[in-house]
């Protein structure tokens, strides 16, 4: 068989499944003006957006009312059924923390790896991270018996010299979540600065213009600013990268550090991180596929990008699949009756349906992504993403509830059934997340204008029309600007 040596043509490159590389093509995007026009054009509020925001706020209010009721009445209105002392709230907490991880992975780790397909989706993913962490952060407070005392978990100087118990994974959680929220919010904001400057320049409303001017930190698009910006971005990416691994590892310690059969296992940190990334990519699909349609951005978020992200989802699903099997193996290998019986119960006990759902959603359905057709079919991807979300929620359900309900003491085995308060607060968390996200996408570009411009060919006739210096000479083209022209 003859070996083809000629370089791939543009057409071939477009057809070929996108291999994670910097080589991303947006053939439908002609120039910078188009980028500015089309992306900033998405910021105009529409009726549908208002309806969506209204629904989100309604959900949020339902959740907030349920929480108010729960604070007043006591946690008993939720479906806790001792010994199942953790339930929907902790499940949802882990779920949202996990969602966040894909954003940081995409924006930070893939940035360091120069994975080009991230460019078009990272802004969404990163905003998703911040809002997911904001959502997740509510739940540990929400699930407290006395939520108004939550600050006791924070080491603050006090008169009684009482410090938190530093051995408790819950204290580690506080640090992990707060760190993660701070870093990811900073990262999101730093990446936004040049985009905000664009918004500022185009804004006509004086109040908004002023606001954008403040937020743009006086960005003037100079060589020096760009150099600093890129360094800062690189630094923050490097700074966020370990958090992708550490935060969810810490969350997994909530379980792994305990002695509960089904929790007490060393596989949890890598397993949780893989699951988090898996669930996060699922959520990215859930968000970005409708978004690219409604905002008419299909020529930015290309099928190639989705295809590449789908491969990542496939990979992480295989990792969690191995982790699931590892759990069974270790349970059998442990020789501990409690562990063995717990895993038997997980498969065939009262919650067999939850396990079956989880294994189907997280192990079986993603196998379809081996097919290129499926990877490039946005409808399937979106449906699959919903299954991924459900599957990952139930993964945490299966970890939390059946483990607690079948612990060491058979006399105390019990069931669990959430109440309307649990469900309302669960809905409220989606409302809260959606509200922030919807607000975000109409205030800030949901696709990074700056980074898109890096992969769009500039119109060369404008090459020197970038302005003049104080002497009146055209500014020179700066070759070290990211996204060097070809």
């Amino acid at each position: 068989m003859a070996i083809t040596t000629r370089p791939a043509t543009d057409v071939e490159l477009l057809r070929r499944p996108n291999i994670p590389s910097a080589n991303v093509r947006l053939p439908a995007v002609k120039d910078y003006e188009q980028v500015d026009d089309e992306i900033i054009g998405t910021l105009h509020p529409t009726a549908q957006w208002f309806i969506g925001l209204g629904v989100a706020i309604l959900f949020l209010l339902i959740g907030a009312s349920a929480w108010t009721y729960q604070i007043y009445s006591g946690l008993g209105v939720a479906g806790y059924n001792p010994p199942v002392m953790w339930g929907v709230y902790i499940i949802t907490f882990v779920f949202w923390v996990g969602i966040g991880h894909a954003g940081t992975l995409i924006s930070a780790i893939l940035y360091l790896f120069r994975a080009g397909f991230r460019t078009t989706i990272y802004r969404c993913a990163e905003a998703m991270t911040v809002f997911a962490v904001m959502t997740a952060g509510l739940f540990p407070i929400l699930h407290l018996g006395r939520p108004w005392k939550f600050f006791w978990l924070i080491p603050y100087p006090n008169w009684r010299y009482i410090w938190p118990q530093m051995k408790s994974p819950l204290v580690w959680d506080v640090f992990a979540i707060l760190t993660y929220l701070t870093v990811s919010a900073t990262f999101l904001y730093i990446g936004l600065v040049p985009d905000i400057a664009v918004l500022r320049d185009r804004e006509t409303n004086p109040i908004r213009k002023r606001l954008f001017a403040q937020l743009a930190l006086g960005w003037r698009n100079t060589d020096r600013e760009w150099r600093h910006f890129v360094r800062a971005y690189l630094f923050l990416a490097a700074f966020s990268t370990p958090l992708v691994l550490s935060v969810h590892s810490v969350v997994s310690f909530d379980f792994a550090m305990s002695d509960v059969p089904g929790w007490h296992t060393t596989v949890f940190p890598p397993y949780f991180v893989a699951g988090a990334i898996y669930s996060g990519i699922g959520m990215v699909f859930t968000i970005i596929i409708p978004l690219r349609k409604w905002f008419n951005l299909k020529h930015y978020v290309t099928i190639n990008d989705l295809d590449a992200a789908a491969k990542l989802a496939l990979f992480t699903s295989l990792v969690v699949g191995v982790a699931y099997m590892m759990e069974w193996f270790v349970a059998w290998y442990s020789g501990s009756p409690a562990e063995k019986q717990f895993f038997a119960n997980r498969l065939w006990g009262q919650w067999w349906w939850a396990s079956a759902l989880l294994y189907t959603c997280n192990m079986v359905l993603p196998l379809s992504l081996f097919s290129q057709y499926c990877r490039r079919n946005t409808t399937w991807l979106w449906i699959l993403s919903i299954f991924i979300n459900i599957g990952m929620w139930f993964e945490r359900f299966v970890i939390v509830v059946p483990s607690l309900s079948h612990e060491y003491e058979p006399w105390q085995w019990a069931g669990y059934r959430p109440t309307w308060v649990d469900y309302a607060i669960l809905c409220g968390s989606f409302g809260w997340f959606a509200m922030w996200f919807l607000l975000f996408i109409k205030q800030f570009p949901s696709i990074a204008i700056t980074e898109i411009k890096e992969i769009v060919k500039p119109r060369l006739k404008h090459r020197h029309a970038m302005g003049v210096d104080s002497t009146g000479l055209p500014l020179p083209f700066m070759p070290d600007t990211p996204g060097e022209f070809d």
Partner: protein
Amino acid sequence: MSTETESTGIKRRDFLKVVGGGAAVAASIGCSSDRVEKLIPYLVSPDNTVPGVSTYYATTCRGCAASCGVIAETRDGRTTKLEGNPAHPLNRGALCATGQAELQALYNPDRYRSPMIRKNGKLVAAKWDEALQLFSQKLGQTRSRGANNAVFINQHESGSFPAFLDQWLSDYGMPPHISYDSGVDTAAIAAHTAAYGVAWPRFDFGATTLIISFGGDFLDGWGPSVPQQLDWADARAKLVGAPRLVYVGARRSLTGLNADSWLDCKPGTEVSIARALSGDMPVAQAAQASGVDAARLQSVVDEYRAAKPGLVIAGGHVANSTDLFTVVAALNHSNGAVGTSIRPDQAILGYEGIAPAAELRALVDRMNAGSVSLIMVRGANPAYNMPRSTGFAQAMAKVPFKVSFASIMNDTSEMCDLILPDHHSLEQWGDAEPVRGTLSLQQPAMDPVFDSLATSDVLIKVAKGDPANAAKYALPDYRTWLIARIPGGDEGMATALPKGIVAGSSLARTARPASSAFAAAPDIASTSGDLFLFVYHHPVLGDGRGANKPWLQELPDPVTKLTWQTVVEMHPLTAAKMGLDNSDLVTVTTSAGKLTAPVYLYLGIRQDTVAVATGRGHVNAGRYAKAGENAYDLLPLAGNSAGGIAMVSTKASVTKAGGSMLLATTEGSARQHLRDIARAIPIGELGLAGEPKHAEPQEEHLPGDASHEFLPGLRSPVANDAQGDFGDPASKDKGMYDPNHWSHMAQRRWAMTIDLARCTGCAACVTACYAENNIPTVGAEWQGPQIMPDRTGFGANITRSREMAWIRLERYYEGGEDGSADFETRFIPMMCQHCGNAPCEPVCPVYATYHAPDGLNVQVYNRCVGTRYCSNNCPYKVRYFNWFGYGEPHRSQYAFPEPLNWQLNPDVTVRGKGVMEKCSMCVQRIRGAEHRAKLENRPLRPDEFTTACAEACPSRAITFGDAADESWSVTRLIKDERAYHVFEELNTFTAVVYLKKVNHPAPATAPAHA
């Protein structure tokens, strides 16, 4: 300034009004909704009352006929706890759950707050003068129309009051009173009287090697529970040479579960097994008649023949019990039990003089005939516990005037026209004769809670106002009358009261003419229905007397573990045949009535039998008593020849009612699943293990360096580590965790042993713990979450496992997976194990749970934020969470409605909403004893005090003490060869050490003695 205010248009006064109004609104909705209560110090303190220091009154428990001695702990004028009186001959310091719960009768929110008179069909509050005047008037009318038409029904009690009452009645020309107690086995009493000459002999279980019980549920409230349980536990604690117990009956009661073997005979065929024992009937024939496996019956018969002396006891729940008693009495006379293990000379006198139900049955006819013009009822509740088939309530309604002396509302008193509320027994004077020659004194432990009056004093007052009797009742009150009877009068009383007992005997009551017995019941096998119906007295609620006490409603039935609910017990195989499962509703129909209740699958019942417990389902007996269904409705009009109601006399048809009702049970899985929680050792293997390897004296342990070899986690390997700040083993600053710290706290290790060979699973410890530690009950209807349609009603919180019992009794079955009768039951009390290496401690983010230097695992309620991680991480699952504000009066979940809150132990916090709580090993008692010792400038004496559970335990299974000090008994018990820790493999180093249950297999199958 004034110009400025004027310029803004707001006048100073207006401003103040607004501010004042706002402040008033803020004050009324903010801070506290409680009314302001003023603290007024005593100007002249009452005798013996030091604020904050308890006074102890020895008195007598009236919870059942036995009359145990109790010591009432009274703090600032309110009784907060009952303990057994160690000097009392009957209960010797122990107290059962029913006795503990007498406090909730004293402080029952449904007590009558004043006399009540029925006006226009409704009971309305009245003044005592008015009520007594009405009573005198009615007495006068009755006398003028022939006083023989008056009836007085008194809840049976021993002592002098019955004689006093009879005297009073005769002074008014009325017949002697009916001393009624539906909770006792009158058939057994008649049989005992016939065979041994006393109503209830003491059973000395230790004097025999084999006990065969035909439904004689001596641990379930059949007879005096506490002394019988003490004797039983002492007998079993002998281990080698301890008696074996064979239980014969259609349903395994608590006694049956404690038995080593069970012969599951058909109801009504007990007598054939007894005849097989006596040799009057061939074993094969008896086996065939009773449905018992012939080989098993044969081995019991062989064993019985070999056992000298054997002991056979029988209960009279079946209709043909008379035949059974005859055979049993002959057996006991022939096998040498009488005089050795049956001790008529140490008879329990509280059971003398109880009128059988037949008397009330005869009364029904008289009431229906209109020949009763006045009925007076005190304490008893025949409208509830006379089966509906007797028509008692309907007949009573026809009586023109009905007087009740009830203290708490009940189904009978609510039918009456005049209520003269009696004091509770803890508020009044009295006496009882528990054993021959000893009077147990009853004295008020506190002032009356409500505007009630002791019935004895009411009688005296009324007589004083009656010209015909005034002269005879010149004495000021009943107390004076009582003291006059005590040897030594006032002084004798004063010396006797602190002990609670005095030599003497009570006045004999007037004998009533023997009444007609019931018509002979038809043979149970010939009644119509599919399954035998086994109605039994609930071991805790009894005949319904306990029903309005939330402690007892919430206390899981020792056998079924159900709370707040009436269930139909059914064998799993029978249920499977009928397509039923736990919690499916079924309707049980007999000729007398029907009842719909959920199914509970119970291994300890015959496949052709269903069982229902009495005690619940009151119509009008207070807010808590409404729970459940009334099993008395099912009983047809059938009695035994002794005049008692036959509880087991008919078959019933059981049909699926459709739908289901969640079981308010505290049972998770009744199998141990290889976890080895409740361990047992066959008697033959005792001593084979050689010297226990943990018995070697240990070198002194510094906290933190204990080896894993020592048995019982006496020193935590991480005790000092538990305080993270002092975690460095090289640190010299171990604070109070240093054994040489001046407090010497770290030189102690509070620990506990629980002897499973003694424990019967009676659950008295649970109620004692509720009383001591202010544990809220959570199962009342209005405490439920009311958030899911299937979770409402009584027990709604329990169906979500939210019971708060700091100590619980787990009941595990061994064997019998195939549904056979050959299964063993192990009871194990489970509470916080106070681990030396506690999994709960490091996971609490706020140090709400931490390790005290003396080994306690401490829970700081004020610090708890409610993450509940501690509970997740607790392998023993002994942490309980306050899901609601059970201690907040304005909430529907409030567990202590006034005046139940008067009982709260002032030494213990009432926990708030959203915090975790658990067994503290009665830390308030530990600190109290330490402080007392400090004040008296002495060290703690060994076994000086104990926890509430250990103090109450009627089988003396629980021992508490300092395991680091050789002189405490707990240290000796920890070295027992049977000692083990639950989940030792988790390295928790628990402070609670269990001693294995000892099994006594049938001789044929027992391994040879080494």
